[in-house]
């Protein structure tokens, strides 16, 4: 995992004074940070520190209470997402009654498909070769996570927001995630990864962004 040595003058993602409150209780913030192309940043914090909420705010799913977010220099509104952001949340967003392949085909229909890769190839890359036609509800939690990772491979997005991507994965799975992050960074993308610290990166030392619930 390498932080890109040559920083693009316009950061891929920039947050200024970002804060979010629920029921008037502050969840996180105010935060200032920048993410450049080719970077992977680890968001660290205890359970309940607001990591998941931060990712949701950065994706545009939630509106921040204060502050601004800019994607490639433009203000982030849901309307301008255009294939730039991918969010992998706690729930993988897969339909149990559909097969792995059908789920991926839906995702590409919705979000487009990167050149040079197909759903079948993507499933192979994540170690699920042979599981194309298995209904997702018959897959284990780790396997479902891998299907979600295959979706990350397929659908083009400059910014990856991964919430606890290592959860449910075995050793091989953790290495897979790190490999995917590496490739993504090398292709000029950027990623924000949350982890509560139990599963640290095993390759390289990424930049860390600590987050804490305001007192």
């Amino acid at each position, binding site marked *: 995992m390498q932080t890109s040595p040559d920083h693009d003058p316009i950061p891929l993602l920039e947050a200024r004074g970002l804060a979010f409150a*629920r029921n008037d209780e502050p969840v996180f913030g105010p935060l200032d940070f920048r993410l450049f192309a080719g970077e992977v940043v680890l968001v660290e914090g205890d359970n309940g520190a607001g990591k998941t909420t931060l990712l949701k705010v950065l994706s545009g799913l939630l509106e921040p209470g204060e502050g601004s977010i800019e994607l490639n220099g433009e203000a982030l509104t849901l309307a301008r997402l255009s294939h730039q952001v991918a969010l992998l949340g706690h729930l993988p967003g897969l339909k149990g009654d559909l097969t792995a392949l059908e789920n991926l085909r839906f995702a590409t229909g919705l979000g487009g498909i990167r050149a040079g890769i197909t759903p079948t190839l993507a499933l192979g890359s994540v170690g699920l070769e042979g599981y194309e036609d298995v209904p997702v509800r018959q897959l284990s939690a780790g396997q479902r996570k891998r299907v979600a990772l295959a979706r990350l491979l397929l659908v083009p997005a400059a910014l990856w927001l991964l919430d606890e991507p290592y959860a449910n994965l075995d050793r091989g799975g953790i290495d897979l995630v790190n490999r995917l992050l590496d490739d993504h960074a090398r292709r000029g993308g950027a990623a924000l990864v949350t982890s509560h610290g139990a599963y640290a990166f095993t390759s390289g030392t990424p930049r860390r962004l600590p987050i804490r619930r305001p007192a």
Partner: protein
Amino acid sequence: MNTLTLWFHKFGSPPVFHRIAGRLAPWLYAGALLGMLIGLYGGLVLAPPDYQQSDAYRIIFIHVPCAWMSLFIYFFMAANAFVALVWRIKISEILAMASAPIGAAFTAITLATGSLWGKPMWGTWWTWDARLTSELVLLFLYLGVIGLNHAIEDRRQAARAAGFLALVGVVNVPIVHFSVNWWNTLHQGSTVRLIGPSAIDASMLWPLLVMALATKLWFFASLFVRARNDLLELEAGKEWARAEVLREGGTP
């Protein structure tokens, strides 16, 4: 223009609203009670018996103002909901949600008094009169807003969702009136109109208008009391809220 926006801004600030509302509420209640005494005296004692309905008509002095209020409050609630959704003003959220139960109560009183009026006239407790039926649907609209507000935990999200519902409902109110009127004309057999098309005499009109004013004052008084409480609950963690509660002799 500057002073107006400044005043609006100040009024929108929770501590200021809390103070002003607290000071106004007792006066509003007093005015309402006075108005009701005058209006009811004028309606129940002074006004002459109706040509057709003799003394039974007198219930209109409660029924009609309450009906007017039930509609007025719904539009007031929807207007505040609109402001709350577009400009995210906390006070508007509070006012909108606090209006709902009061509006529902006025609607219920309208239905009850309408029912009481129907009994001596037509011997039944309920008639599917166009206006009463519309009021019944209005009651459901209110209950929906109240129910949705209570079903969501996050108070601000609840106010936004219920406010959105109120806006959808406000578009629906004229549609319901129109369709219920049409439905009533279809089923000719039971055209009972609680208020006939006859012009209303001046001696009956002035108590009605006084009652209308009195109920408005009552609404704003109740609204302010409710809104102050809701506001304190919502802002419970803030400094000014704690100071207020201590000042009023309570425990934060």
